[in-house]
């Protein structure tokens, strides 16, 4: 669905170069599921030409939050939006997380801005789930703790928490969890997701990964966001078959 007149409620820089944009978009907010994304037109001109895809970070009644890093021209324009500005959003798109099932432990693994989809997922977990958030980053400044629970941190440079990557951190804690009662939900750079997928498959953990890709349309027509599938003759599309995949279903 397209909401051409989403209304900006606020843009807040929660830490250096990390922003939370809140947009009132009632129709999309009503149908959105954790792990889905929206494709946002950041300007009403031909620059930038294409929409920019963002995970849904959280939903509060009819307001959708997006969390993003300042990386280029598109996010720069977005970071400068003012309360009351209108914004053109397509959403909610793609396949989100499957958080049904009887697992007791929900392990969230996020690399840097990969933390974005998890506040909304956490909100949707039933109360009895035991949630632990493993956050990895190159350095302390890359760790985003916004609305996450029971946080354990790793940094590549050792500036905060465990000195190493987030998969090594998980490995150091994994003895606490039984693979029959635990599910892993992950989002982050492809290198991290690749390593985590191999690890979780080897250890027998159910694992879902949220992937990202450059895309034009976001709803299956441009075919630009393809990813190699494990069981499929055709390429899978991040926008339609994903962005959330079972770890064993894609080759990143």
């Amino acid at each position, binding site marked *: 669905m397209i909401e051409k007149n989403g209304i900006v409620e606020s843009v807040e820089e929660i830490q250096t170069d990390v922003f939370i944009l809140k947009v009132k978009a009632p129709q999309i907010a009503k149908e959105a599921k954790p792990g889905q994304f929206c494709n946002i037109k950041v300007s009403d001109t*031909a620059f930038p*030409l294409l929409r920019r895809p963002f995970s849904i970070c959280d939903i509060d009644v009819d307001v959708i939050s997006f969390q993003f890093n300042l990386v280029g021209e598109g996010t720069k324009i977005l970071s400068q939006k003012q309360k009351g500005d209108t914004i053109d959003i397509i959403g909610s798109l793609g396949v989100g997380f499957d958080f049904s099932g009887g697992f007791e432990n929900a392990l969230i693994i996020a690399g840097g801005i990969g933390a974005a989809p998890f506040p909304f997922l956490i909100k949707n977990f039933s109360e009895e789930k035991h949630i632990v958030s493993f956050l990895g980053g190159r350095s302390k400044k890359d760790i985003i703790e916004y609305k996450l629970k029971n946080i354990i941190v790793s940094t590549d440079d050792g500036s905060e928490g465990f000195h190493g990557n987030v998969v090594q951190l998980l490995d150091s804690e994994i003895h606490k969890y039984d693979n029959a009662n635990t599910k892993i939900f992950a989002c982050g750079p492809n290198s991290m997701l690749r390593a985590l997928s191999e690890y979780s498959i080897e250890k027998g953990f159910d694992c879902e990964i949220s992937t990202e890709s*450059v895309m034009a349309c976001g709803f299956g027509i441009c075919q630009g966001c*393809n990813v190699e599938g494990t069981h499929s003759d055709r390429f899978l599309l991040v926008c339609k078959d994903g962005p959330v995949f079972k770890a064993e279903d894609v080759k990143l």
Partner: protein
Amino acid sequence: MNNIDLSVKIGSLVLQNPVMLASGTVGYGNEISDYTDLSKIGGIVTKSVSLHPRKGNPPKRITETSSGMLNAIGLANVGLDAFIKDKIPFLKDIGSTLICNIAASSIEEYVECTKTLDSEDAVKAFEINVSCPNVKDGGLVFGNDVNNVRVITEKVRAVTSKPIIIKLSPNTASIKEFAQAAKDEGADAVSAINTLVGTAFDIYTKKPKIKNITGGLSGPAIKPVALAKVLEISRNVDIPIIGIGGIMNWKDAVEFMICGASAVQLGTVNFVNPSASEEIIKGLNDYCVETGITKISDLTGSYSL
């Protein structure tokens, strides 16, 4: 809403209005139908179909450039059998004119696809893609040689009586010769332009931004080139032209028609604004009212040089 006649004729093909959706930018219709009422569109040109399924190119397939985008999808498609079995049932009921785009690696393949689809009642016309820049074994290899375009048009003409549109490449010195060849061999129309070959590099990794190295440039960046090609054909060859290239709004569509296009196709804009087609049809109608045009076909080639 008024008395403007928006219908256009392209050879023997009649469209309810001049706004079509370009091949490769609307899939097989079902995805975009969530965003726009396809029954209001003049025509829909389906994703290129080839005899056998094609997986397409590996990632990364697209990148944004200044007011444009590069793509190298590589004609990924379900193949002719699945197209007929799985896609036509949806497409036949959309209430718009269905045009099948055919891409092939050999002249025989063009002929076989056309022949097979000719018996499908839902298919009202063919667009022959002789100009895809993103596959090694077809498309532009044909599109760059006027004799190949001549032979393909002739052979395809022999197996169907439905209208044939030849989709031309801009990656050539003289597009009018290709349009003339298409006309000589019995094509009903030409569509122009396909994408321009381009590339983009990351300055730190020094690698191309798309895996295929080069891709097809589309979007507003190419509109002036497309207009010049349409005008060149219009001034030199007596054949209906479907204008394509960077149309973002109704004003762009009007500009193409003034330069000689009988109809237009929307491509990249569908990715950005999937309801653009309806907005453009309304804009064209309002323009006719504003400027006192009663038949939109009068706009075609109305340039004053």
